[in-house]
């Protein structure tokens, strides 16, 4: 367990680095990395203020980087699907309903998140879009309506919350940043 735990924490720390970049840019501090085969292949941070597009969440940013890159490299549609099905996302805050749907549409393999998102969360808090839904067809077989992905929360949650709390409380972007505690939470 300790190996996979330390790897999870290692990637979540990189997601938190992304959240810090967002904070520095006066954006809501949420960040993420996308990992394939033990390697970070994309990262993203929230850019809603700068773009004036409230859908530019960290996850969407990181996904667009990948799609763009694969397109340039001439990767085919079925290969894109294959690649996403091998990817794991590490994000500091539970994906919102929009991002959780997007991750299901892409068919991502697994998601690890930090703090939960009580207002918008799409991975258990408000809706559970990571669980597959299905409908019963006329000939009585289950037909899946969406793709499920494995989802684990609470990874370095206190660090993620602290960043958000600092952001919302400081108001003044020039206020000194708090030092970040190194306490580590890993649940499996």
């Amino acid at each position, binding site marked *: 367990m300790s190996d996979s735990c330390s790897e999870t924490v290692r990637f979540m720390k990189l997601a938190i680095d992304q959240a810090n970049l967002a904070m520095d840019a006066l954006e809501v501090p949420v960040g993420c990395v996308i990992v394939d085969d033990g390697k970070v292949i994309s990262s993203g941070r929230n850019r809603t203020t700068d773009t004036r597009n409230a859908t530019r969440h960290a996850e969407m940013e990181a996904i667009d980087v990948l799609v763009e890159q694969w397109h340039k490299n001439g990767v085919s549609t079925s290969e894109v699907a294959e690649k996403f099905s091998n990817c794991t996302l590490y994000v500091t805050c539970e994906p919102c309903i929009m991002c959780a749907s997007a991750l299901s549409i892409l068919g991502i393999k697994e998601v690890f998140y930090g703090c939960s998102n009580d207002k918008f969360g799409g991975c258990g808090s408000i809706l559970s879009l990571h669980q597959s839904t299905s409908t019963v067809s006329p000939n009585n077989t289950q037909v899946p309506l969406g793709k499920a992905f494995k989802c684990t929360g609470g990874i370095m949650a206190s660090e993620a919350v602290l960043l958000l709390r600092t952001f919302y409380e400081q*108001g003044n972007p020039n206020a000194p940043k708090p030092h970040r505690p190194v306490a580590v939470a890993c649940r499996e």
Partner: protein
Amino acid sequence: MMNNQLSTCEIVYIPEKEPHDLHNQPTEFVFASAIDPKHANHIVRRLNQIAPLEHLRHVKRIHKKVLEGGQVELSVMLCLASEGDNQLDTVPPALQELISSFQLSPFITKVCKYAASSKEEWQEQCKIWPTSYHPRTYNIDGITGFSDENAESIFKFMQSAIELATSDDLIVNAAVIVDPSAKQIISSARDQVFAWSTNKENSSSDLISNKFATNESFQVNESNNHLKQPYTGVACLYPWQWAKQQLHSHGSYYCHPLRHAAMVAVESSAARDRYLFPSEQNTGEKYIELDHENPSSASSPAKRQKTVCTTVENDDQSKARSQTSNQLSERPYLCTGYDIYLVWEPCTMCAMALVHQRIRRIFYAFPNPNAGALGSVHRLQGEKSLNHHYAVFRVLLPEEAFHKCHTDEVPETKETCVC
């Protein structure tokens, strides 16, 4: 051409929760008692202190009945009761005291459990025990009906969405964002899941004509759908099918599984905003959307700033702005005050994107039984935890509306709306 046909159709409000069976609304048992009208004020004031009944705030405390001969009989709701429980044992002591001091004789009766969401529901509720009815919890035009003029402009904008959806061989979903105060289109887009162009700002890039491989799930979907055709090119209807696309064309195309029409239209409206109102930093003001992805533990009651004034502008931009809005120096916060027209009910991703971008009203023509998030599979307009709520309407159209766009020669059909 199709105006006549469109204007015969209806606009239906899609409420926050599924309407209850009018004559079979959920009820709850309560203790009530007849009281002397002289004591009514005193008793109600005391009851509000000792038995407030928070979750039944829509239920009136007093039930007034006018008997033959004009005599008035008053009953008062005392507290909750359980079915078949005629004992007052569970009633709190303070209430017991009140009952004995006014010599009340409690009986069990029913009241409606949930606040009425329509006038019809409310009228039915009052036959059981009077309730109060607040037609609108927020101020969005249209929930109580549209004027002819507004209805006409709604049909007009829906028509442009349908024209966009059918502007290529492959019918896809289309989105049109509108500023209703200026009756002006802010941005519009077709689905761009498969596109030749890699230019994201170009919302009308050509799409590859393609068809899905037929598989089992399509047969299911067809049977659930009101429409005769499956419309497999519509991204919100088949969000998970992009990977199974069989393309007739080869060569360099751009595939982005998330570029549904609504997402692209939101992106274009943001790009337009950045162009028209370039840098708000010059005024020293900065947006911070305080409740974005904000977990409750970090929430803040601070108010969001809704508009920002800019002082720096060039001629082009100010010209464009004066066309767009009567308030020259004000720009909307995201899509606050804007409406979006979609041919199909949006999927969960798109519907949540429209919450984030603060769209005021959504109009769609056809339901989305596979993935629709405005009543079909989910109902985001009724998710209380969300920080923004839009009003949702369905514009009832016949399927023939699609074909009307292609050829004006199609003979007039007597077919009525798909309801």
